């Protein structure tokens, strides 16, 4: 399966085909991509990307910048 030197393979005269490990990995990757596509297509994962932090998404009042806290507000009381 593994090798430590680059030139110890393919002593045949015919060009090699795609190795089995690559075919199996390719199938797994395609299945995973399809799963992710389904998740995003049906919005299972929720909102995605920078828009999720956009206006109205993070402030209880819905203002664009959210409610900016003063330094005193940020300090937690013990």
């Amino acid at each position, binding site marked *: 399966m593994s090798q430590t030197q680059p030139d110890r393979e393919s002593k045949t005269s015919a060009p090699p085909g795609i190795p089995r490990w690559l075919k199996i990995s390719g199938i797994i990757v395609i299945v995973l991509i399809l799963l992710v596509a389904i998740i995003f297509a049906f919005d299972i994962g929720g909102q995605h990307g920078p828009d999720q932090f956009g206006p109205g998404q*993070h402030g209880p009042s819905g203002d664009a910048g959210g409610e900016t806290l003063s330094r005193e507000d940020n300090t937690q009381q013990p």
Partner: protein
Amino acid sequence: MIMSPALRKLTLIVHLTVSVGWIGAVVAYLALGVSAVTSQDAQMVRAAYLALELIGWYAIVPLALASLLTGLVMSLGTRWGLFRHYWVVISFALTILATVVLLLHMPDVSVLADVAQEADEASLGGLGGDLFHPGVGLLVLLVIQALNVYKPRGLTPYGWRKQQEQRREPPLPPDPG
């Protein structure tokens, strides 16, 4: 151009260091990400989001770029080549993919950190965190690491042609010394 053994070892040390460091930095990022999502302490959540931005820009991005660059040098500077073996091609493609996604995602992390600094306690929990990208990224990095350790067999058509050309070349004359 094939590197000398000493230069090859030096490049390999740098490549291993930055590549494993990249994985470690992502693990640290994930730990902070989990803390940002699960902690009930608002100060802790704000600090975690700020740390995500810092660790992303100042640790993960430089390590990713260094890993990509040293990996390129290692492949082109040794007999492995960049397009001769499937495992090298796949490793390189995955590294490029991970780096591009990282660079595209980091501005979102900066926005998230900025919002977290200004959000009140009630809205901090609604930020959603950042676990998907680093989680998938870590999986990709582990796949790359496994490929680099196992080096599974498989010549590309280009690698096969190069190998045939090298076999057809006449052997070098013996060293007069």
